[in-house]
C-alpha cells in the first residue's frame, strides 16, 4: 500500500518482451500476402474471392465454436485468419466456394477447436482440411486452370508434377519459379513464397531448421534419384506444394517440435516422406501427407530429443538412455 492505493504484486520477471501471439500471427499473415497477390495475378481475381470465403468461414467458425463451448473468445489472436489463408492456398482457383467454406470449417472446428484450440491441435488444420477435401471432392480439388487465362471453369488437367515423366511439354524453370503453371492457388509462385519465408526468418517468427532440413532432404534425395541431374532437382523443389508446405505449414508452432534437435529430425522426416510418396506412391503430391505423418510423431520426437538439463554429466546421460531402453 502506498498512499492508500494497492500495488501490483506478481511473480518475476516484471519485464516482458513485446512479442505477442497476435504480432506473430500478423507477421505470418503479412508473409502470406505476396503469394496471395501472385495468385490473383496468375489465376485471376476469383482467388481473392475463394480466400475471402475461406478466411471469413475460419473466423466465424472459431468465434461460434468458442462461444458454443463457453470458452474465451480467441479470434483476436488472428490465428484463425492464418488457418483460413492456408486452407485457401491449398485449393485450386476453380473450387466451388462452398467447398472452400467446408474446408475452413473442418480445419477450425474439427482439427483445432475440438482438441482445445490454439497450441493444442496435434495436426495442422490446413493440411488436414486439404486431405479431407481431396478425398471427398477429388474432381473439384484437381481442376487446375492455366495461368493468365483467368478462367473460372477448368480447362486443363495437370500440374507439373503430374506431367513429369510424361511426354507432354513442361513449363520452364523460370515459369515454375514465378508460378506460371497449374496448381493450388497459393503454392505455385515460388518467388512469392520464398519472399514470405525470408520475412518470417528475419522477424524470427520461424527458425530456419525445419524449412532447410525439409527442402534440403528433398533436394538431396532427388539428386540421387536423378543421378545428379540438377534440372530435375530444381523441378522437384519448385513444383507442387513443397515450398508452401516447408515454409508455412511444417513450421506451424502447434504441430512442430519445440526443440531444435527434434525440429531437425522433423524436417528430415518430412522431406523423406515427401520423396517416398512422390516417387513410389500413386499420388503426384506427397507434401501434405508427409507433414501430417510427422505431425503425429512430434510428441515422440520431443521426448526422444529433450535437451538434458544444464550440467547433466555425460555418463549419466548414457546410463539414463540404457535405463530407458531396459
Amino acid at each position: 500500500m502506498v498512499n492508500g492505493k494497492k500495488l501490483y504484486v506478481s511473480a518475476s520477471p516484471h519485464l516482458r518482451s513485446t512479442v505477442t501471439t497476435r504480432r506473430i500471427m500478423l507477421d505470418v499473415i503479412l508473409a502470406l500476402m505476396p503469394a496471395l497477390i501472385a495468385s490473383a495475378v496468375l489465376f485471376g481475381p476469383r482467388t481473392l474471392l475463394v480466400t475471402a470465403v475461406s478466411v471469413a468461414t475460419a473466423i466465424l467458425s472459431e468465434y461460434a465454436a468458442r462461444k458454443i463451448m463457453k470458452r474465451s473468445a480467441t479470434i483476436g489472436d488472428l490465428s484463425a485468419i492464418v488457418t483460413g489463408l492456408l486452407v485457401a492456398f491449398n485449393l485450386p482457383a476453380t473450387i466451388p466456394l462452398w467447398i472452400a467454406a467446408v474446408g475452413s470449417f473442418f480445419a477450425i472446428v474439427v482439427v483445432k477447436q475440438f482438441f482445445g484450440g490454439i497450441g493444442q491441435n496435434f495436426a495442422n488444420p490446413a493440411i488436414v482440411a486439404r486431405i479431407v477435401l481431396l478425398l471427398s471432392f477429388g474432381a473439384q480439388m484437381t481442376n487446375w486452370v492455366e495461368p493468365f487465362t483467368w478462367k473460372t471453369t477448368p480447362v486443363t488437367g495437370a500440374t507439373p508434377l503430374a506431367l513429369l515423366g510424361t511426354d507432354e511439354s513442361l513449363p520452364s524453370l523460370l515459369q515454375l519459379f514465378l508460378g506460371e503453371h497449374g496448381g493450388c492457388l497459393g503454392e505455385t509462385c515460388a518467388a512469392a513464397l520464398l519472399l514470405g519465408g525470408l520475412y518470417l526468418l528475419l522477424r524470427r517468427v520461424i527458425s530456419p531448421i525445419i524449412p532447410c532440413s525439409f527442402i534440403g532432404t528433398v533436394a538431396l534425395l532427388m539428386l540421387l534419384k536423378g543421378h545428379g541431374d540438377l534440372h530435375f532437382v530444381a523441378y522437384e523443389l519448385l513444383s507442387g506444394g513443397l515450398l508452401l508446405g516447408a515454409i508455412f505449414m511444417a513450421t506451424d508452432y502447434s504441430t512442430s517440435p519445440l526443440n531444435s534437435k527434434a525440429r531437425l529430425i522433423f524436417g528430415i522426416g518430412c522431406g523423406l516422406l515427401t520423396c517416398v510418396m512422390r516417387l513410389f506412391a500413386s499420388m503426384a503430391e506427397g507434401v501434405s501427407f508427409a507433414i501430417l505423418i510427422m505431425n503425429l510423431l512430434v510428441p515422440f520426437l520431443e521426448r526422444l530429443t529433450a535437451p538434458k538439463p544444464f550440467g547433466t554429466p555425460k555418463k549419466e546421460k548414457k546410463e539414463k538412455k540404457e535405463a530407458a531402453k531396459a
Partner: protein
Amino acid sequence: MAKARLDGVLTAVKKVRGGVKVAHHKNTAELEVVRIPTPSTVVIPMQQHIGAPCTPTVKVGDTVAVGQLIGDSDKFVSAPIHASVSGTVKAVGDVKLPNGVMSKAVTIESDGEMRLWEGVQPPVVNTREEFLAAVRASGLVGLGGAGFPTHVKLNVPPDKHIDTLVVNAAECEPFITVDYRECMENSWDILSGVYTIKEFLDIKNVVIAVEDNKPEAFHVLKRIADNEHDPDDEVRLMVLESKYPQGAEKMMVQSATGRRVPPGKLPADVGCIVMNVASVAFIARYLKTGKPLVSRSLTVDGSAIAEPKNVRVPVGTNIGDIIDFCGGFKAEPAKILTGGPMMGLAIVGTDLPVLKQNNAILAFAKDDAVIKPEHDCIRCGRCVAACPMSLMPTRIADAAKMRDVETLQRVGVTVCMECGSCAFACPAGKPLVQHMRLAKAILREEASK
C-alpha cells in the same frame, strides 16, 4: 566494443546458451553514489541471509554504535548482524520482510551522530583460517542479490581444489548500476580485494567478468587485471556479450572456464568460486578498517521515481525514506520492486527495511507495471530457446498444472534458477517462473512424504 581494445582480454570459453536481449535501462550509470542523511530509525531484521536466522544480542534500552554486533547465530550457515546507526534500541520484535516472511528485528532510534563502535578495529589476518573468521565477523553476504553468507562460500572443503575465482561485474539485470559504480568509484578496493582473496585462498586464476555495455568499467578493470602485482598474468579480464542472464553464477563459471556445474552442485564442485564485485571490494575495506557490513549501495530508479539516484544507505533503512530522498514519486506507483526487474521481488508497500542483499529499489507507474495478459500456449518454443539451463519450461508448466510428479522428476526443474528468461520471451504472457516455482514446490512436497 572495438576489436583493438580487446587485446589481452578473455572472451567466453564457452558461450551461454539461450538467454534474452533485455533493454538495459542503465539510466543511473553516471550518477555517483550519494549517502542518504542518517535515518531517524532503522529496523534491522535478524534474517538477511540464506541460512539460520540470528538471535538478537541486545535488548530494549541498550545504547549501540555503528558496527556493534546486535545479532548472531552459532549455526555455520549464517552471518552476524551489526548496528547500522548509533542510538538506542527501541524494540526487539517481529517484522515482516519484503518476501512476506516474519523475522525477528532490532529497531534502533538514531541519535544522528553515526558514532563508530570502539570495537571496530582492523582484524589481524595472517592465515586462511583468520581470513575466513574475519569474513564471517564482517557479516558479509553475497551483495549481488542472493544473500548467501560469504564465509560459507569461501570455506571450501580441502578435497575440492579451487583453481579459479570469478569476480562478477556483469550486472546483467536492467536498471541496476551499483556494481558499475563500485568499479568506477572503488577500483582500489576491488584491486586489493582480488589479490587478498587470491592470496589467502591460494587460488591460481582470477577472471574478472564484465558485460560489453560498460566500456568505462572495462578500462578500470583492465588496469586491475594488468597490475604489477600479477607478473604471471593470473588475473585476467573477460568481456561478455550483453545478454541476460550472463551474470548468473553457473553461467559465469561456464564462460570463464568452459566447465558446467552439474545439477544440485556448486561452482566449488568444478573448482570455481564466483563473487560479486561489490563483495570483493567490501572484503578489502573490511580488512583495512574493520567496519562490518552496515551500509550498502542501491540503485533507485523506475518510471515512478522523481529523481533516480544511486544511494548508500544504512542497512535497515525504511524503503519509504529512501524513495523520499530520491524526490518521492513523480507518478503514482503501481509496482515497487526490491532488486532488478527480471528477478526482483514485488513488494506490497514501502514500509519495509532495506536488507544487506538488496541492490535496487525500482518503482514503476501503471503503464510499466501491468504485464501482458495471459493466453494459451502456442508452442512456439521461445521459452525452450531462451532457457540457459536447457529446460523445456512450457512442458514443466503443463506438468506442474496437472501435478504430474513423474514427469516433473524427469524434466530437471530443480536446475531452474528462476532467471525469468522464459517468461520474458513468452508471447502468450505465461507466468512461467511462477509455474517453475510451483513445480519445485510439488517436488519438495513429494520428497517430504
